[in-house]
């Protein structure tokens, strides 16, 4: 009698243990693995031999070549005697820099040259100091405070590639003209503190060390270029890495078109975070699927090793939606994907970055509300601006207000939206509905601004 009971107990015990073990499996996020995939890529910078830069700059100085290659308005003149090679952080490659003057008053110019991905790139950096006398164009800084003013990078024709506003050495604003966001521009954005070291005295010895001092300043310019290049590369890598293999072709087309412009999801996230360096280092999976009635997009809140962050779009439910409507939704969801990832891989910094979202969650116990209130508060203008870039690229000639109204998509249930004047809310809701369904709020068929996706 004892034996079968014992056997039964053994079997039961094994079953219970098995059951418990099955319930202990954990497929959720793993911070260490998530972090590992954020590792930097190796540098692809190479030094241009000094003689080659000298020859190139010399040719630029040649009036005949200048007329061909350089906009006459810039009146670029390179000081060949100032040509030097400076070290760059985190790479063996060196940057060639020379002082230059232009016809622009109050502008300090440097010409930089380096080989990036096997191609020689040349860019001009223009420093415009705040409160500086227009007549002062000498290279040496005129005070020992950290740089306050603006820095623009341009090509040799003087076309602006990027602009940065500095306050006491800290970048406070980044502006990259949309025309140059299409492809990785050779030299790009910012992160850098000015490291100018003021000469203690003006004696001969100090003056001899001027080169050193200059190098410190040039290091800043170079750092800007270096950081800018890699941050743009990060955005491109993110955009290229979006897994859209299960996305309906009609939405794939919109995503592809977004990627060709400064309205790509990577740029959207960067606009939101103002951190082109870190914020796009994650993987995003987008696919098509069936969602609840009235729901166009659905983003997971768990970061999984297998699928990362996944967003599902229900294109089947909205057959009349235009490409502008879907572009808006894709951009909106990219921000959710970023917020989910950031929280899962770096909780402490996320909490300090988004305290309001934490508060909202504690009150409402809802991710949906917390995320959307944050986006409604801080992102509507940017979504509108980015959507406009996309619209222009598709040949639409629509006013800014339309794009700004579209940017409220998915945010109509937020407190921020509900505080808008009634007339604004009504206009926005109608525009969103028309682009989504081809009907206004009252169900009247209305002409759409965008083209139907054919989904």
């Amino acid at each position, binding site marked *: 009698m004892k*034996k079968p009971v014992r056997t039964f107990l053994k079997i039961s015990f094994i079953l219970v243990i098995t059951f418990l073990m099955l319930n202990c499996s954990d497929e*959720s996020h793993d911070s260490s693995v998530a972090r590992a995939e954020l590792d930097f890529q190796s540098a692809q910078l190479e030094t241009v031999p000094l003689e080659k830069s000298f020859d190139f700059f010399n040719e630029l100085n040649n009036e005949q070549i200048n007329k061909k290659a350089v906009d006459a308005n810039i009146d670029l003149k390179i000081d060949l005697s100032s040509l030097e090679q400076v070290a760059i952080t985190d790479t063996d490659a060196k940057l060639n820099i020379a002082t230059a003057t232009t016809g622009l008053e109050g502008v300090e110019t440097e010409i930089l040259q380096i080989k990036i991905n096997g191609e020689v790139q040349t860019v001009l950096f223009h420093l415009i100091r705040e409160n500086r006398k227009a007549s002062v164009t000498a290279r040496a800084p005129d005070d020992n405070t950290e740089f306050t003013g603006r820095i623009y990078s341009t090509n040799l024709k003087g076309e602006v590639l990027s602009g940065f506003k500095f306050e006491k050495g800290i970048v406070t604003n980044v502006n990259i003209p949309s025309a140059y966001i299409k492809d990785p521009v050779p030299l790009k954005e910012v992160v850098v503190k000015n490291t100018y070291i003021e000469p203690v005295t003006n004696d001969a010895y100090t003056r001899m060390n001027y080169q050193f001092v200059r190098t410190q300043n040039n290091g800043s310019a170079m750092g800007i270029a270096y950081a800018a290049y890699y941050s743009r590369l990060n955005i491109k890598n993110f955009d290229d890495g979006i897994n859209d293999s299960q996305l309906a072709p009609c939405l794939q087309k919109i995503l592809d078109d977004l990627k060709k412009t400064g309205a790509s999801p990577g740029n959207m996230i960067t606009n939101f975070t103002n951190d082109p360096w870190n914020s796009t280092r994650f993987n995003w999976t987008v696919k098509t699927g069936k969602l609840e009635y*009235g729901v166009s997009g659905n983003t997971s809140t768990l970061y999984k090793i297998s699928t990362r962050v996944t967003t599902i779009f229900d294109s089947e439910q909205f057959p009349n939606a235009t490409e502008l409507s879907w572009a808006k939704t894709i951009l909106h969801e990219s921000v959710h994907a970023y917020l*989910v990832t950031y929280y899962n891989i770096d909780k402490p910094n996320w909490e300090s970055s988004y305290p309001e979202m934490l508060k909202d*969650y*504690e009150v409402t116990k809802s*991710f*949906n509300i917390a995320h959307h209130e944050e986006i409604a508060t801080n992102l509507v203008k940017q979504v509108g601006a980015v959507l406009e870039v996309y619209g222009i690229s598709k040949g639409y000639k629509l006013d800014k207000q339309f794009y700004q109204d579209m940017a409220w998509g*998915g945010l109509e249930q937020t407190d921020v939206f509900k505080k808008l004047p009634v007339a604004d809310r009504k206009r926005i809701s109608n525009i969103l509905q028309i682009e989504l369904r081809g009907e206004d709020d009252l169900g009247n068929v209305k002409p759409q601004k965008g083209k139907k996706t054919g989904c």
Partner: protein
Amino acid sequence: MKKKIFILLSIISIFILNGCSTKKQLMSTNNEGGYTINFGVGKLKKDDEDVIIRGHVFDLKTGKLLSNAKLKTGCFEFRTTSDGEYSFRTRNRQEDSFFLEVIAFSYRAVETKLVNIYNQKEVIIDFYLAKDDRPLIECEGDEMIKKMQRELNNLK
């Protein structure tokens, strides 16, 4: 004989495992989280002494202690420390009115049932929170949602 007893025992066990009761089988609520309660040793000697409520907040799956989780009771809110620990005093009372809710970002909230804390020196409540895996959804337009809601309501 032995074989019959074994079969009988097995059947009884299966019934027990399947929760063979006359009560209606209820599904659990919206999340897997929960809590444990332990009462500390000893009782309060005076009515006007306070009861200590303390414990920890854990991630249900990983067992990790959760910092900065918010605990709400009555008019007050407390936070867990960086070690996921909390502790506070509350008024000793006879009425069955004490309950505690814990909320942590990205976890489903858990609320206790009413707990009789009367004359307890110490009540230790440990919470185990499940991840909030509800997806973020885009509801397209207030008016459209209202209209759809009317259409979807079978009872009108």
